[in-house]
């Protein structure tokens, strides 16, 4: 028994990612066709050459037909997966395992979400019939519980913490401003963000991820086949996933200053990849900054900062584009936008660009030589969460 990973056994050889936008003129089918088309061109293959497909969508469609129909696939397996906001990573993870198992030569993971057809602000979950006792708080409010708890535990003045959170948002806006595919491309300074009215706890709308439509895709092959498709494949170093058991909601010992599911997923991933000092070994990390306090706490859960120190590291610019460890160099959920099923693949898309030296000059990181990137994708809420961590590299070994 054990989690062994599939380090260096499979590779990503093509990727596509639509701009994340309020795509009023594009439906789920259009987004899928666009993202897959770009992915196929990137890998230099045609749709029929893909042996098996994984589609991640939280609630833009059910069953594999959501993908098979718009692509007019002929006799191919399509698995539709859902795992909250980590849905895109889940599709990717399954495609990687399918190739590693030897069952298929070429697999493709696709993530899509068409969120802007609901007519409501924000993200809204399908109502599953229940006894009416479930809480009905927004995600923003659930994550806002983290801020006062963190401030209290580490003795950070709430006003100071407010500026730290604003700095995280400001950094991600600055990165997104340099990214033509991002939803929000306006830089926001810390004072302006601090001045916004709060909507949930101390969070304003500028502490929340953008809500956008979008899709992304990745072509997965065996590592030994990778160079048939590209000279610069990206190798899977680690894939880990933890589905929390919800005990944080039951357990008075849970204090809302960390996410145990993320910590556990990171530990597993580092073990698979042989990473011991992530802050210095990783070239960049794309993390699930659904709300600014989430990114703050993740710096500690993922081992980039010591417990209670992330707020200082954020203030010191450690995670800026040209900092010690760039975080969310593409703008993150905050600025790139968050089409649920696509986000995990969007994170990999940034690693794909950066590790291959293809990121545009203005947001190219200085740490590429380290050769490793991390994607972290979570779903759910503090106390009951799913968490994915993937580690990717531009060379084997």
């Amino acid at each position, binding site marked *: 028994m054990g989690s062994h990973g599939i380090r260096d056994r499979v590779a990503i050889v093509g990727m596509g990612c639509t701009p994340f936008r309020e795509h009023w003129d594009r439906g789920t089918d259009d987004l899928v066709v666009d993202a897959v088309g770009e992915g196929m061109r990137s890998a230099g293959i045609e749709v029929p050459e893909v042996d098996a497909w994984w589609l991640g969508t939280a609630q833009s469609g059910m069953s594999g037909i959501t993908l098979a129909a718009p692509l007019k696939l002929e006799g191919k397996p399509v698995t539709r997966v859902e795992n909250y906001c980590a849905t895109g990573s889940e599709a990717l993870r399954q495609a990687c395992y399918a190739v590693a198992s030897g069952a298929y030569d070429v697999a493709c993971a696709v993530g899509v979400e068409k969120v802007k057809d*609901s007519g*409501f*602000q*924000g993200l*809204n979950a399908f*109502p599953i*019939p*229940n*006894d*009416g*006792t479930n*809480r*009905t*708080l*927004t995600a*923003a*409010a*659930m994550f*806002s*519980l983290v801020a*006062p*708890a963190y401030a*209290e535990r580490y003795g950070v003045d709430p006003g100071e913490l407010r500026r730290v959170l604003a700095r995280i948002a400001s950094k991600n806006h600055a990165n997104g401003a340099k990214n033509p595919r991002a939803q929000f491309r306006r830089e926001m300074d810390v004072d302006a963000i601090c001045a916004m009215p*709060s*909507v*949930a*706890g101390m969070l304003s709308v500028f502490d929340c991820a953008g809500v956008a439509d979008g899709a992304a895709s990745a072509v997965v092959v065996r590592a030994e086949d990778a160079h048939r498709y590209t000279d610069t494949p990206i190798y899977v170093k680690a894939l880990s996933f933890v589905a929390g*058991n*919800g*005990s944080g*909601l*039951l*357990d*008075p010992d*849970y*204090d*809302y200053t960390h996410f145990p599911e993320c910590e556990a997923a990171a530990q597993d991933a580092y073990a698979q990849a042989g990473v011991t000092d992530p802050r210095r070994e990783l070239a960049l990390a794309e993390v699930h900054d659904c709300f600014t306090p989430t990114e703050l706490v993740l710096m500690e859960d993922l081992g980039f900062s010591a417990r209670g120190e992330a707020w200082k590291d954020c203030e010191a610019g450690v995670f800026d584009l040209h900092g010690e460890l760039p975080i969310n160099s593409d703008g993150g959920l905050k600025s790139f936008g968050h089409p649920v099923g696509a986000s995990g693949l969007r994170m990999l898309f940034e690693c794909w660009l950066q590790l291959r030296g293809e990121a545009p000059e203005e947001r190219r990181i200085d740490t590429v030589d380290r050769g490793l990137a991390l994607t972290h994708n979570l779903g759910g809420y503090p*106390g009951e969460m799913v968490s994915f961590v993937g580690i990717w590299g531009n060379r084997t070994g």
Partner: protein
Amino acid sequence: MTSGRVRGVVAVGTHLPHWRLQRSAASAVLGSSQGKGTRTVASYDEDALTMSVEAARRALRSAVAGTVPVGSLWFTTSTPTYLDKTSATIAHAALRLPPEVPAADALGPRGAGMALCGALRSDEPVLVLAGDVRSGPAGSPEDREGGDAGAAVLVGSSEDGPLVGEYLGGASATREFLDRWRVPGEQRTRAWEERFGQQRYDELAGAAWDAALKDAGLDVDQVATVAMSAPHARAGAGLRKRLGAAGVDVVGDLRDRVGFTGAAHPLLLLATLLEVAEPGQVVGLIALADGADVFLFRAGEGTPASPTSAEQLDAGDDSLTYARALSWRGVLPVQPPNRPEPPRMSASAAERRLDWKYGFVGSRDRSSGAVHLPPARVSFVGGHTDDMDPAPMADVPATVATFTVDGLAWSPSPPVVFAVCDFEGGGRLPVELTDVRPDDVSIGMPVEMTFRRLTTADGIANYFWKARPAGGRAAGRPAGDAPGGH
């Protein structure tokens, strides 16, 4: 009243909503005097049933009442949750009564009096619940002079324990006449000229009073105090005058601070009578509602439920704005947040977890003692399966571990104030707070659980529990912003 087995009131409990409206606030909006004093206003998540349940919880919590096996339950109101469905069964579930106890509704203003009559003539413990939400168009008599409350009386016998009120006798008088009426589904109560009703009530009240004295074998000068519940100020005026002349103390009917609480009013007044009466004093309740029901009791040694109605009167928050009070009753519809409305609850899912949803009963792992809210089959400590005991948590105090205010979530009265609550002796639940202003919440604040109506969808009222500041902590706060802030 023979062989030493005396019927009477074993316990009474009341619930006055936290929120109060100063009538001057309504005057300022409407531009005409709406009178003086305050009225109680059921919060947006309260209705006749929830207020009755809160009152009954208090009555049953009193030491004696907790041991009395309730034989049947009556719920009375003029504002029922449903027509083709019994509301009393929801109270039955919330109070965790056993299945062999029948529960039924007695609708209309006379329900409390009749249920009390029946209970006093029965030979088993009977729990009578009464609640009402009095509202109408802005400036209507119900809006101006009405009030919202719940009350509950547990009737039993001296064998059940010391009575707070020993029943001495009573009488009723009935005759059909038209005074006030409201058509189902309508917001407005209509009224005939009050002077007609006044005359009818004078006759009926006088006749019932005389017959009650005779039934109890009492002279009027043996009666210390009476309370009179009447639908308007003129009703019963003649009898009040007669009693005053005879030296009987007619206590205030709470109109100045609570308002007339309709179907709940007779039991609310009975509670106030018994709470202050000296043991041995004879007190009388006169309930006028399309007839007259008179009850005479001798105050006993039993202790009143806590908090008393007087304590609740002194707590509460009277800074409620008139606009918000009207919006809570649907008289002034307000724009909801642009979020999907909650779906209806599933009847079968709710029934499967009846004790959780209505009784707030979790489970406690036998080996680790870990409390699970909601109840679970597998423990989060140690992982043992199906090794749990029920953990009733409705009366367990809790404190706020952390909290937030959600201005985005759908709510009948945004914003949602929400807290992670840790219970004394173990157990945690992230749950909505109520009866609180967002700015008044703090980490470590003590809270208590309260039964509320969360939402209504497809006509289905979704009842569950919320937490609120323990023991009326908001008492004495100066008037300020409206509850719910912005």
